[in-house]
Structures are given as C-alpha cells and as structure tokens.
C-alpha cells in the first residue's frame, strides 16, 4: 500500500515537478560548459564555515 502511494506521488508530483525544474535549471547541473575555464563554486568571502578566534 505504501509503495503504491509512493508510486502515485512519484508519478503525479515528482515527475512533473522534475521536468519543470529542469526546464528552469537542472538541479544536478549536468551540462558541460566548454566556455568556462573552471567548475568551482566559489564561497563568498565572510561565509567561512569555521571561523575560530579572529584575534591573532
């Protein structure tokens, strides 16, 4: 029963949402980009995850 419901949700919600999402922007960013020279996502300055003590 649960699997049936999940299958329905998948077909009626996930599949259409997935196709729409990919029209806007691929959630997995799969396209190869020959024009770019790097695939880095740079971290904005000041958004460092571990800051530690700043006084040095």
């Amino acid at each position, binding site marked *: 029963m649960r699997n049936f419901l999940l299958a329905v949700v998948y077909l009626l919600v996930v599949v259409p949402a997935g196709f729409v999402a990919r029209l806007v922007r691929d959630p997995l960013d799969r396209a190869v980009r020959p024009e770019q020279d790097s695939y*880095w996502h740079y971290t904005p300055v000041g958004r460092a995850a*571990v800051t530690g003590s700043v006084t040095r």
Partner: protein
Amino acid sequence: MTDLVLGISAYYHDSAAALVDGGRPIAAAQEERFTRRRHDRSFPARAVQYCLRAAGVTLDDVTAVAYYEDASLKFRRVLATYLGAVPRGRQSFQATLPPWLSWKLRTPRQVERELAALGLGTVPPISVRKHHESHAASAFFPSPYESAAVLCIDGVGEWATTTLWHGRGDRLDQLAELRFPHSLGLLYSAFTYFCGFKVDSGEYKLMGLAPYGRPRFADRIREKLIDLKPDGTFKLDMRYFEYHRGQVMTGRGFERLFDGPRRSPEGALTEREFDLAASVQQVTEEVMLRLAATARELTGERRLCLAGGVALNCVGNGKLAEAGVFDEIWIQPAAGDAGGALGAALAVTAERGARREHLATGRDAMAGSLLGPAYSDAEIGAYLDGHAIPYRRMERDELSRTVAEKLADGAIVGWHQGRMEFGPRALGARSILGDPRNPDMQSTMNLKIKFRESFRPFAPAVLAEHAKDYFEINQESPYMLLVAGVADQHRLEVRSGGERTGLDLLKVRRSTIPAVTHVDHSARVQTVGPDVNPAFHALLGAFKEHTGCPVLVNTSFNVRGEPIVNTPAEAYTCFMRTNVDYLVIGSFLLDKAEQPPWTADDNWRTEIPLD
C-alpha cells in the same frame, strides 16, 4: 579539563565518536571495533561510552555534542536528485524517502535520544556541522602546520564533493567547492562497483589492483566520463552513471563503454579489471595533482592538508608528494567519514576560540592516532591467568630482542600494544608483523593469516631515521598514507623471463624487502618515530640491531572481513584461529606451540562476512 566537546559521525558508514579537550583530541574510536561489525553504521554508543570512560567524565562534563553533517541540507540534495533524475528513479524514491521522513531528517533529535538512552548524564546542546567542514577541520586543526591549504575530496556529504580551504592559525576558511553529482570519490566507487568490489570499502582493493594493469581505458574515461578543466575541477557525464537515480553505481552505458558487464563479486579477476583499476587510478591522480596545484595557487601556501575518503588513496598522495607541488603534506589518519566525528568536535572548539597549542611542539595533535582503548598489564595478566593461557612476561628490552629474533627466524607475530588506532590503518598498536626480507612472506600472510586475495600488498613500518635509506621519501609518513618507491640501492635487477602480466608479476623478487615491495617497486610506507609508540619503535630498533634491516611488514591485526581487534581476548582469538606464531600483548609473550588446542569455534570463517 577545559572545554570538552564530543564529536559523532553515524548512520552512513563507519560510525565513530571522538572527544576533544579544548582543541586537543583525547579519545576517538570507530564503533565497529566494539560491536565487531565491519564498518558499523549504527549509532556509536559503545564508542561514546569508551570516549567518556577514557577521560573519566560523563555527559554532564561535556559542553557540546558536534554532529558531522547537516541532515536537512542533505535531504534537500536528495530531493533535488529525485527531481533531476526523473522519469527514472522511482524505485530509489520509494526506498529512500520513507526513512528520510520517519527519522533521518531529524537526525540531531535521534542523536540526542540515543545519547540520553546511555544514561550517562544530561545531553548537552548539539551543534550540527557540515560534512566537508568536519573533514576540513580534521585535516587542518590537528596538523603540525601554522598555515596550510586544505583539500577535502570524498564521495558526497550534503552537496559538496570537493572543497578547498585556507587554514591560518586558528582560522579555517572555505574558498571553493564542487557539488554532487560531480564527485571524484563516486567516480572511483563506480569503478570499484564495476570491478565487483564493495562500494565504500573495496576502493582500497581497486587501488591495490592498479599496478598489475595497463591504463588502456584512461583516455576513454577522459573522453567520455569526465570533463576535466586545467584547474582540476570537473563534471561527470551522468548518462554513464546510475548512482543519482538508483541503488547501483553503474548501468548499461558503462558496460558498453568498458567491454561488457561488471565482474560478479567473487568472480575471477581478469586483465580488464586490472586495466580498469590502473586507468581510474591514473585519472584520479591527474585530478588530485591539478586540484593541488590550484590549491597552491589560490592560497599561496607551501603545505597541504588532506582529508575525505579520497585522501585514503595513498598511491595518489604519494604522487602528490613526489610531484613537489607542496613542500609537505599532512593527511588526517582517519580521512574517511569516521574522522568526521573528530573534525566536527574540532570545528566547535575552534569556533569557541581554542588555540592550537600543539604547534609549539612541531608535531601534529593526533598522538600517532593512538586514541583508542588501552589495556594495562594488570588487566592483560588477569585475562591470561583467568583463562589458563601460558605466557612469558618480559621487560621491554628483553621483549623487543626476543620478538626481533623470532621475526628474523621467519615467525609471524601478533602485536597488541597500548592504545588502539583511530582510522582504518593499523600502525603498530594492533598489528601483525613479519620479516620483509622473506620472499614468501607476502603470500604466506595473505593466504594463511588473512585468508584473502594474494595480490594484496603489505605495508612496511620503518624507523623514521632510516626511512630515506630504504624509500624515496622526503617527509614523514606516520599514518601509512603515502606511497613511495623503494630506494635504488635496495632494488634488485629483475631477470626478464618473458613478458609477465597480471598476478604472475607477484612471483618476481624486486628488492631486498620483497614482502613490502609492490609490482611497481612502490611501498605504503609508515615512518615510526620514538615518541608516539615507544614499544613499536623499540621493536624496530631491536630488529635493525639483529638483522641490519630497520623495516618490518605491518598489517592489521584481523582476518579478512573482520574489524581490527580491540581487546586482548579478541587478539588471542585471532591468534589462535590463524597461523600467527607468537602473540605479544603488552609485556606478555605467547608462543603458539605452548597453547592448549583451540576448540572454541570451527566454523568461524562462515560467520565473518566476506569484505
């Protein structure tokens, strides 16, 4: 005690707990060593209990719990992956969504509940860290470097699969990242799976296979699977992979590209698997080298710290060291996700302003990674006497000398000393040792002790002061995570008796220490200094004195498929089940010939799952 933080990694692969005191690791262990289930992913209850016991504290004394990844961010990635994979991926959706909704999404609550259930005091607040933040913190904060570039490369945590950081003093800043599904770790795992090994643990075998093959598929990988930029960043062509839409790594596209279906797990290894291993290894090294060059350029640093599962690729690390992109490399010994427990805790203490006081010593803060349980001579003696096990008790000098002589006579020795290692490698605390000069030692140890494939190489432990005489290495390698060539003066001329390929290559004696010399004249070196494991250092010294050779074969104290032993009882069981000749536990020497017959279990080998 200043500021105790308990780190936890769990629920994916190789759960672990670590306790950090004001930025200094004081205890850490993987759950598998206690539950005896390899790569145990369950909540690390026993490891937590151990860490608290080791420090003599309860949860009331701990100021924070650090969890190594962000479940809600990871769930968003899982959702995005469902969307990105449509219309394929229904089965994956049905299998993975329910556990996410029922508990995984509330992982911090789950951790809190499990900790409370231990009955060891009030659970302090839980700080959720990011997966790669945990890796990066584990790589930089305990390193011996004042400042360094930090690279973390793994399969995937939340979104990040590769991250670049800049560590300076007590600060660690992220500079850039690559995101799922574009992952070097998952590329390597895809080949691991395709070659019939287990994902998340068979990668090490694939790396061991690589030198037997020719990289004839490397160009195909570069052409079809990976779009690699000059700076080492990349995208994978997801049409060839299945891990983003299903429960397997590769599918038909991969089979067409690499000449047929994947090898079945216990099927015969053919030329193709050797060549696939050599090929993906070559591409992996190329990516690592380019990323390292970029790290150097973007940070201006001369030292590099590494963590993440790919940093366990000691062959790749060796190539990095050899290329000289950085002056020196330090690799977190628990580079996989177990080390995330330690890193998460270190991220919290760093945020609170902990100083890296170990920098003044010039050494790292890992204490040789000997952060696990230890057993006193009183405890060991009580165990041996309680079971009427015959032994001889000796002082360290006599013990080292006696064991060195036995080793030189061809004996294989189980070696159980002091605190257990944290991380996947045995480093001379829970090791099986042998004479590396003996040409039969590799196959004897593989087949009679470990009951595993004969191609798998063994690692040398070498006195640090003699490392350069035996290996082409120009830095320390205390954690067996750098591969280096055997030095020229110890290589032997190989007589060309026709073209040997594949496993036939094994039979050739290549150096004065053949048991640890791989087919390409390389070795996974562990350098042993006098500080962190004095008993092991003394043994190597005694072996050098007796034979002139400062090297021993060092392999983990376990059999295939079983976690490394922890307690004296586990060491004794492993000793009795295998063809190990002598066992040393603390100050006690046990001779197999004097032991009562072992009748405890005849069918143990069917109980241990294959790895």
